[in-house]
């Protein structure tokens, strides 16, 4: 009974924790402009994050080493450092976007200017990083993030022609109003939103925080293989409702308020409450995850003690890194950088930074010295190699497409 409860809890938090500001914004933007013609990218990205999260979780559970420790070990200090700089830059950008997202969600709920919220949110996030127990943090925000299921309910309430939605999703084509480069640019952005590097840093380091062993692999797998795809369905529901309500009125999504409009139209005030709670939980939870990930990756590269499982004074450098990151994020946001714009860039740069993180995980998952009986099987390797190629293509295409389309205009 207790085991079943733990299993269900893990799956539910994985669903609720899957969506972050990047998924919210990118799916709404893409839905309003491209309908479901990019739904295949969401599916591709969700399967990809499942493959790599499972691998990094398994490596962490068996070897006790988290991602960046392995990156340094396998790529050496120089290439590892290049990866560290890139990954930390992207994760910090995402951290900024998430904190901004929390402030925007609070502004929507309260009508109090987001600038006044930003320092408050920064402080709250930092307190969670400093003091709140790891599993409480994960469970509370993961469960509250489930409120975003309201997008699925809205889709159902809008009574669309599901057959034509399915046809559109299954027969992708570039809409007449958009150019092919723009279509591809948003494909890369959606892929980056689904497969952000921080998710892997956080997932593998979280496994060590929670002291996983080989015995926990089945539970970890069920979280990944059930929770993440269901989270991906929320992403698709956001895109579909955005297409139905906003796209049909010629609205281009530029603010978090617009992301919530389809729910307002479909379900009214009750729906809006759920959407706002979901926005808050999803962005706040992701802010904690990205903040921790900045600390995790830098500490792991240099071999410093990290983690919330020890007292802060026993992991002083780790906590100082997170403190500096939080102050910087708040500072950047107070210069009036638009969190939505920051989000749009962060998902594209995520795609750029992916390959050097995924290669070492794939290699170590094949090392019997570390993995013993839990070494990659044939399926994991076929999928892993396939995604390495996809990630490489997305990474190389991202910047040229960004320049070519002036960031998707």
């Amino acid at each position: 009974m207790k085991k079943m409860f733990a299993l269900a809890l893990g799956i539910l938090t994985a669903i609720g924790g899957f969506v972050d500001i990047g998924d919210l914004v990118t799916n709404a933007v893409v839905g309003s402009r491209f309908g479901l013609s990019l739904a295949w990218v969401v599916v591709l990205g969700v399967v990809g994050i499942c493959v790599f999260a499972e691998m990094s979780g398994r490596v962490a559970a068996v070897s006790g080493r988290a991602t960046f420790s392995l990156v340094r070990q396998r790529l050496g200090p120089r290439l590892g450092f290049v990866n560290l700089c890139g990954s930390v830059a992207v994760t910090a950008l995402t951290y900024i976007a998430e904190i901004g997202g929390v402030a925007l969600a609070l502004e929507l709920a309260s009508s109090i200017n987001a600038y006044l919220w930003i320092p408050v949110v920064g402080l709250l996030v930092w307190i969670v990083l400093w003091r709140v127990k790891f599993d409480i943090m994960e469970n509370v925000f993961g469960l509250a993030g489930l409120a975003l299921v309201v997008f699925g309910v809205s889709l159902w309430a809008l009574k669309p022609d599901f057959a034509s939605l399915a046809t559109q999703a299954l027969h992708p084509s570039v809409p007449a109003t958009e150019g092919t480069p723009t279509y591809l640019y948003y494909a890369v952005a959606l892929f980056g939103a689904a497969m952000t590097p921080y998710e892997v840093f956080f997932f593998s380091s979280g496994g060590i925080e929670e002291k996983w062993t080989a015995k926990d692999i089945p539970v970890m797998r069920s979280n990944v293989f059930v929770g993440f795809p269901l989270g991906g369905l929320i992403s698709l529901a956001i895109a579909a409702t955005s297409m139905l309500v906003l796209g049909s009125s010629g609205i281009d999504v530029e603010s978090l308020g617009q992301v919530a409009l389809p729910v307002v139209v479909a379900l009214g005030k009750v729906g809006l409450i759920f959407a706002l709670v979901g926005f808050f939980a999803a962005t706040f939870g992701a802010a904690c995850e990205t903040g921790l990930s900045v600390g995790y990756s830098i500490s792991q590269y240099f071999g410093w003690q990290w983690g919330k499982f020890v007292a802060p004074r026993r992991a002083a450098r780790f906590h100082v890194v997170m403190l500096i990151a939080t102050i910087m994020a708040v500072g950047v946001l107070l210069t009036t950088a638009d969190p939505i714009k920051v989000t749009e860039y962060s998902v594209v740069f995520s795609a750029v930074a992916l390959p050097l993180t995924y290669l070492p995980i794939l290699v170590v998952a094949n090392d019997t010295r570390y993995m013993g009986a839990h070494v990659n099987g044939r399926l994991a390797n076929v999928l892993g190699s396939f995604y390495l190629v996809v990630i490489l293509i997305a990474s190389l295409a991202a910047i040229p497409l960004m320049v070519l389309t002036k960031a998707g205009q």
Partner: protein
Amino acid sequence: MRWTAPGVGAIALALLLCSCAAPRDDPEAYLGDSLSTVETVASYVATAQLTASAVRDGRVFVPSANVVLSETMQSLSDTVSTYGLVEPPDERSPMRAQVLDVSRRAEDSVFSTLTAVRRGDTAALDASIDRLTAVDADLSSLATRLEDPSGRRGE
């Protein structure tokens, strides 16, 4: 809220000085600017329409609607003033005046919607929804005319 940062503003200004401050010599490019301005304005008007009717039907909390409408108002004025800074290649072309005219009416109607929502004035809200609908229709007919070259010549 306003996201137009001094930093972002400076970059935008720099870009503007490079590309737009001088008159657009290329009529094609100017037509593209006009068309995308009209489409962007239409997107904001549609956002305001959706929000305003949700307020009228009691489907949204006033603070949230207020935030959405204020942001829309802000972005709308930014778009219009950016377009206003571009000099047209042909002084006699009525295009610029047409776009600016309908855009300013869009601004007025979004602003009156925002005021009505803030005051909780139902009658004023209904009136501004009607104004939004009218502007929306004008925007789409202007867009059609701009897209269709024969319509342009007919002016």
